[in-house]
């Protein structure tokens, strides 16, 4: 069974979703939770059977799909993707469990299960076209979730989300077709397999163009400044569950794809574009942090802070060294946990008051002490306080980039301080002071169902903040392999210099392994 565990992980939720049409409406939530729990258990089993010492792909599957055109159904998981897969399974479970009274709950759960299929598919696909299939397919459930259960401007928001990402990924598709064509020219066979592409060394001028094509697709998904304008609408209009999944998992597709495609395929171009992208990332960090400060809607604060932190992930990725990339992958997990939790928390108060405006609140700490505590912990984590999960990721990302540029890192570090300002200000407006509005006096504190969703997130936040090793080690192993591959493939002087040679580290590891 372990030979096909990745296929099972992908298609089990889809199959369950199809059968879900037969379930009676009132029992649907239990069914959804059951399916998502099984899926999460399977993903934990995947982690359990995962060999931490191996840097390459594990649990690979290979079925010919369109061999005449080099398209094969190839799956595999390594340290880079493993934890995002688990995160996706985890958040679907938590999301379904914490669903509040939703109209058409049956359609919602079926859609979520389909969405889960596409999310897992993106992270384990090792064939360009299979990756693209899941990448595009993930737009449809999200379009429906935002468009059918969203706020007043939901249709505008959902269509904007769809068209933006669709347009970007089509440019990426052209890039993929070029990549396959270059592979065909070099070897005489068509192939869209990513591991095949890794072996291809392209001249720098080609790399620049292809990098740009892939960049458009990924940057819109992340979303990087100046392509980020769809995100505030999507978050602002989406129902809680939509925002949670969007922030926790869907945005990670972009940053994950940078590490899976852009860096190892185009090392020279990555080094060439390092500074422009770092500048964009820093603009993104600072600008969105300032925008977040100006928001009156607490959900928009969380949304913009989420974009701001995505900037740190990008910065870490384009540090092009092991610390930076490992840190950015860790930060992806951390950002997923923290911003997912924050969106859930905003959902909690929205369910009670049906408003997200901060001036409607005030003094909530008196009324809802447990809620205020959890919100406080998550907010601290979001700010990047030491001993929380975000700190590890942010620190490593910035440390990685510090080796490339001191000044830019300093700027990015400043932005984290700005982050503290807007987050603390928002917290103060909502929770401290006197209770000013009568409606807020008798709000019930978090109930059991919400606690089931939130407590595990708090535990993870603190546990991985104190002891990140179980996750960091497999990530590190795989990242070392990627960086080494980039170093070997790099042709330009600049790239050779920027991308460190880690083979020394790997060598000592293997020798020590043999010595045992």
């Amino acid at each position, binding site marked *: 069974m372990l030979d096909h565990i990745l296929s099972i992980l992908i298609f089990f939720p889809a199959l369950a979703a199809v059968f879900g049409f037969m379930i009676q409406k009132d029992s649907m939530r239990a069914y959804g939770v059951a399916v998502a729990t099984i899926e999460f258990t399977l993903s934990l089993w995947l982690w359990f059977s995962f060999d931490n010492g191996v840097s390459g792909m594990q649990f690979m599957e290979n079925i010919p799909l369109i061999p005449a055109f080099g398209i094969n159904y190839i799956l595999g998981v390594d340290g880079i993707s493993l934890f995002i897969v688990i995160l996706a399974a985890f958040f679907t479970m938590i999301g379904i469990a914490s669903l509040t009274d939703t109209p058409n709950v049956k359609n919602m759960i079926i859609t979520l299960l389909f969405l889960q299929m596409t999310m897992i598919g993106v992270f384990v696909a090792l064939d360009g076209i299979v990756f693209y299939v899941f990448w595009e397919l993930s737009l449809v459930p999200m379009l429906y979730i935002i468009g059918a259960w969203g706020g007043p401007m939901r249709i505008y928001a*959902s269509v904007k989300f769809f*068209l933006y990402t669709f347009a970007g990924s089509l440019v990426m598709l052209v890039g993929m077709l070029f990549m396959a064509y270059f592979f065909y020219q070099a070897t005489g066979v068509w192939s869209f397999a990513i591991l095949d592409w890794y072996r291809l060394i392209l001249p720098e001028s080609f790399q620049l163009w292809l990098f740009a094509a892939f960049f458009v697709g990924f940057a819109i998904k992340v979303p990087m400044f100046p392509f980020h304008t769809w995100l505030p609408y999507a978050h602002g209009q989406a129902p809680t569950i939509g925002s949670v999944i969007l922030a926790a998992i869907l945005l990670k597709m972009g940053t994950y794809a940078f590490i899976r495609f852009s860096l190892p395929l185009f090392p020279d171009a990555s080094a060439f574009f390092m500074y422009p992208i770092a500048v964009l990332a820093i603009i993104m960090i600072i600008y969105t942090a300032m925008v977040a400060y100006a928001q009156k809607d607490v959900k928009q604060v969380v949304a913009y802070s989420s974009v701001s932190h995505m900037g740190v992930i990008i910065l870490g990725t384009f540090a092009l060294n092991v610390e930076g990339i490992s840190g950015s992958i860790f930060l992806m997990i951390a950002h997923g946990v923290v911003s997912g939790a924050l969106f859930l928390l905003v959902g909690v108060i929205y369910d009670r008051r049906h408003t997200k405006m901060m001036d409607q609140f005030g003094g909530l700490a008196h009324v809802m002490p447990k809620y205020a505590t959890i919100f406080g912990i998550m907010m601290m984590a979001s700010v990047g306080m030491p001993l929380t999960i975000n700190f590890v990721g942010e620190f490593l990302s910035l440390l990685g980039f510090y080796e490339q540029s001191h000044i830019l890192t300093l700027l990015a570090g400043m932005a984290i301080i700005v982050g503290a300002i807007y987050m603390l200000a928002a917290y103060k407006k909502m929770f401290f002071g006197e209770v000013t509005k009568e409606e807020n006096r008798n709000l019930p504190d978090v109930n059991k169902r919400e606690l089931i969703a939130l407590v595990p997130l708090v535990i993870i936040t603190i546990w991985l903040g104190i002891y990140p090793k179980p996750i960091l080690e497999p990530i590190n192993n795989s990242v070392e392999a990627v960086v080494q591959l980039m170093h070997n493939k790099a042709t330009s002087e600049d790239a050779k210099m920027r991308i460190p040679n880690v083979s020394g580290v790997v060598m000592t590891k293997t020798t020590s392994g043999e010595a045992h």
Partner: protein
Amino acid sequence: MLSPVNVSLESLNLITLAPMLIPIIGALMIIVIDLFKGGLDKTLYVVISILFLALDFGALLESAGVFTKDGIMLGAFNVMLIDGLAILSQFIIVLTSMLFIPLAMTHKRFHEFSYPEFFALFLFMISGFQFMVSSDNLILIFVGLETASLALYTLIAMHNRDKSFEAAVKYFTMGALAAGLFSFGSMVFYALTGSIEINQIAAVLEANNYADIGYVLVAVVFMLAAFSFKLSLVPFHTWAPDVYEGSSAAMAGYMSIVPKLAAFVVSMRLFEFLIHSGVVWLEIVLWILVVVTMTAANIWALVQTDVKRMLAYSSISHAGFVMAAILIGTTQSNSALFLYWILFSFTNLGSFSMLWMSRQKHLPDHQASDHSYDKFAGMIKTAPVAASIMALFMLSLAGLPPFALFWGKLYIISSAVTGGYTVLALIMALNSAIAGYYYIKLIVYMFMKEPVLGNDGHMYVSNATLALKSIIGFAAVGTIFAFVIINPLLEFITTFVYNSGY
């Protein structure tokens, strides 16, 4: 003194004519049956048509077998040319027709289907298209084209809407103009080369090294205009939306597939050698034509308020997309054309059949046209299965993976990349994104809006019968599971196209 003409029957190779003669015999048989006993039910004629098309399909399998063994066949005084293109396109024509004809078995009665002539004309039309694609001879192509078109005009006019006559007359006028342009173009070619066979024309022009380039260009302009009318390329497309609106949804779906495929095959035969001859001017004109057709039709489609008109413009855009394959002109792109068109045929036929299934005899007051967007508002709440299937077809038309049309788009864009048309590839990709908007618009109406008051969902399936549902089910399954058949299909197509020398 005239010497007696001696032709042995073997040299005529009459087997090449068999696939075209079968529908003609079928059509005559339908007329004869009606002569003996009138007033028979349409189901009889539908089944007879299907049977003859099945025979036709069998004959095609036979020719395909001979082609794989012996290569290209000539017949009937060498005017028939049975190569891979002819066989492939006839397969698509016959299969699409077999899928189309059961759409006549509607729940409501439409008077065109009560005439047996409808089915006879339909079969004549098919044989016309079959002649058109399996000849190298401009005269035979012309005869096939006109046989098919004249039958098609009548079929359109038989529908019971006021606009149907307008549509038929409009189509007829434009078709007549195109026919005139075609014959003028052929005349110039004949004057230049003394031949009306495309390969002879190519050989003679090659031999004198395009000495009379001016006249060649004149001929090409006429030919290009003629085919642009048939393929509804911008700016020769103006008839298309009105004709689609006037004809029944089923017929519109059919028109968006079969006549265009026949025209594509002839343009492939004609323009391929001209592009490869290095007539730069033609390449530029085709490039502009392709880009303008794709883009402009997409932009017009954005502002339509009627789903059928939207689909009409989308068909124009798809035609432009596929025309790019002829411009690129490599084996890969020509195979991509056929792959695309096969996948397009059942997706598009499926979506037009969905409209056909919801066709009302009398429009309620709030509804401006047969298939306005409002009609589909909130469909997910009242008819969830129908809405999901319709959404599936829209996503496939938009080119969302893994549904059918995505693979066609992938292969055509890839052939543009391989053929060195980088900018074109990008424009094609971005056009798919523009097109995404209007397909999504229908999904937005169906899934995210509230239904119009008093709509109980019955009207979406008011015309449904088992036959219609099976056709739609077949198209839906084909759309979802297309990725299973892409590989054998691709290998089959590529072999046939390659062995025909394209």
